[in-house]
């Protein structure tokens, strides 16, 4: 038996293919949106994995350090080291900011949105591996940068008041928002985060000096002590804890919460905070886009198949008159809808794969999403063909006679 759908497609293949490409681009956008969500989840998981921590100790009653601001004293890490079940603890600061560097070749200033991480070398929070260069060995003004920043080894990066030399490069070190990370020594990071500029310091000192409570005539050294405390910072955003083998994370976290008046999150809790809370709104946003795109795609397929069927009403009347069954006619329309979906899916998958690396944020295209997407597209096309099939089956064969 002749495949009527195939013959019709071959007869008007140009129209069919171009329609399929148009639909495919829409499907490509849909797959990319799914990839954006997957990328966000993956970024969050990668950030947790790369921290090398089993517990996150943060300010009480906060969801820090990624979802909410958190501030804890940097001596907490030393206290924690004395507790049972804790193998290692490291102070870490996180700050999302704008970093800039001047390209030596062109002299142009380039700005990149980064997450600045202050860490203690050899402690949790240090990048697990480098893809180029060396670790930080000096106490100040050296940095490790993620490849996505675009900074090269030896390049000088401006962070607030100082320039930092990039000595090593990392990979897939990004924040949950997708900003690439730059790692610098903890003290430098504390300065970047907490220290004010010179004008503000002079102003602050003047205000303190004019405050009779801090500038008492009979208390020498009080004013200097207060002013010194204002120019140093001993706060970090979190203490990352690595547990001793066999230690129970929940138990250790419970002990910290009870005795240190701090909040401690296990890995599972941190994943829940990052994925279910921090990116929850973005996920819903993306889900809404996916739903709308799916509806738009279905409407377009339905419209195209319906129009294609309307253009063939005379042929369908003739086919019915000469004895073609409803099944033959329905099958022809359904096959065309599925063919359109197949072309659309292939174009969509190809285009999503090609343009995903061009996006500034990580797009993760999972094979299982592609498989689900394929079946969804086919289902959508099959459902969309119902209108056209209904119209075709209502055609009176008498129309062929006139």
């Amino acid at each position, binding site marked *: *038996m002749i495949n009527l759908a195939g*013959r019709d497609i071959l007869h008007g293949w140009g129209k069919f293919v171009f329609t399929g490409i148009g639909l495919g681009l829409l499907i490509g956008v849909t797959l990319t949106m799914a990839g954006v969500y997957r990328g966000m989840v993956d970024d969050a998981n990668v950030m947790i994995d790369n921290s090398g921590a089993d517990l996150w100790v943060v300010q009480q009653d906060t969801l820090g350090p990624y979802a909410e601001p958190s501030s804890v004293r940097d001596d907490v890490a030393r206290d924690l080291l004395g507790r049972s079940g804790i193998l290692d603890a490291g102070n870490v600061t996180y700050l999302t900011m704008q970093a800039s560097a001047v390209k030596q070749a062109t002299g142009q200033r380039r700005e990149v949105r980064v997450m600045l991480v202050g860490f203690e070398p050899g402690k949790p929070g240090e990048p697990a591996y480098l893809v180029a260069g060396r670790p930080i060995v000096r106490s100040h003004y050296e940095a490790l940068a993620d490849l996505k920043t675009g900074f090269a080894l030896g390049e000088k990066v401006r962070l607030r008041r100082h320039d930092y030399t990039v000595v090593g490069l990392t990979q897939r070190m990004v924040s949950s928002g997708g900003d690439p990370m730059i790692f610098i020594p903890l003290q430098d990071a504390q300065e970047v985060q907490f220290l004010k500029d010179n004008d503000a310091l002079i102003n602050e000192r003047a205000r303190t000096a004019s405050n009779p409570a801090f500038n008492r005539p009979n208390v020498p050294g009080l004013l200097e002590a207060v002013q010194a405390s204002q120019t140093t910072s001993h706060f970090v955003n979190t203490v990352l804890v690595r547990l001793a083998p066999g230690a129970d994370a929940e138990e250790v976290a419970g002990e910290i919460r009870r005795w240190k008046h701090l909040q401690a999150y296990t890995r599972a809790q941190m994943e829940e905070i990052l994925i279910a809370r921090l990116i929850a709104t973005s996920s819903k946003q993306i889900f809404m886009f996916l739903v709308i795109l799916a509806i738009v795609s279905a409407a377009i397929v339905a419209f195209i198949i319906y129009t294609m069927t309307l253009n063939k009403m005379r*042929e369908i009347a*003739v086919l019915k008159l000469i*004895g073609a069954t409803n099944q033959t006619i329905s099958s022809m329309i359904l096959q065309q809808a599925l063919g359109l979906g197949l072309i659309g899916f292939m174009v969509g998958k190809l285009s999503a794969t090609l343009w995903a690396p061009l996006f500034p944020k990580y797009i993760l295209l999972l094979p299982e999403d592609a498989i689900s997407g394929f079946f969804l597209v086919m289902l959508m096309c099959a459902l969309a063909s119902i209108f056209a099939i209904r119209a075709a089956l209502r055609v009176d064969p008498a129309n062929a006679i006139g």
Partner: protein
Amino acid sequence: MNMPAIHIENLTKRYGEGDTAVDALKGVDMTIWPGEVVGLVGPSGSGKSTLLKCLGAVIEPSSGRMTLGGQTIFDAAWKIDDLRTLRRDRIGFIFQAPYLIPFLDVTDNVALLPMLAGMPDAASRSRALELLNALDVGHRAKAAVAQLSGGEQQRVSIARALANHPPVILADEPTAPLDSERALNVVRMLNQMAQQYQTAIIVVTHDEKIIPTFKRIYHIRDGRTYEEAGEGREV
């Protein structure tokens, strides 16, 4: 030739009900024998199209009786459940415009009918080629429909109507778009095919050029038929 290909008695067709009812056919009688080509002539609105649709099992008559090859297919109601199969296997259609399927080539336009009837593809195409050769369009067997001239397309549509060797072919103004020479050619082919396949052909026409070629003509006026002998002029 002892059984008519098609025989109808007192066939009526009423559209609508009550005050708005219209009697398109008011009692039509007609008998066509195998191998015969009969003209059905009448002015616009006389009921030609309605009669054709009733004969083609496309619309249901209101009353009367209709037999096809001796089998009663209508007697106050359809006596056959599957009218589509009846049309496919036992009635051929030739339209004013050829109405070929544009996305099939010439051979497959003809072969589609036997294929729909369950004949294997190769045998269907072989039969299609045989018919196309008989109608002098065998050399365009692989051509697309759009590449054919109007006359060639009409010959292909005749081949399609004959594809399942039906006992009856209904031709609706088959020569309307053709000039005299081509119109007479079509009539010649219809006569030839009727003889060759023992098919009864009813040709609905206004065409003055071809009316003298029929040996029998049914005139239809106000929903009633009147039979008269035609000139039967040789073509």
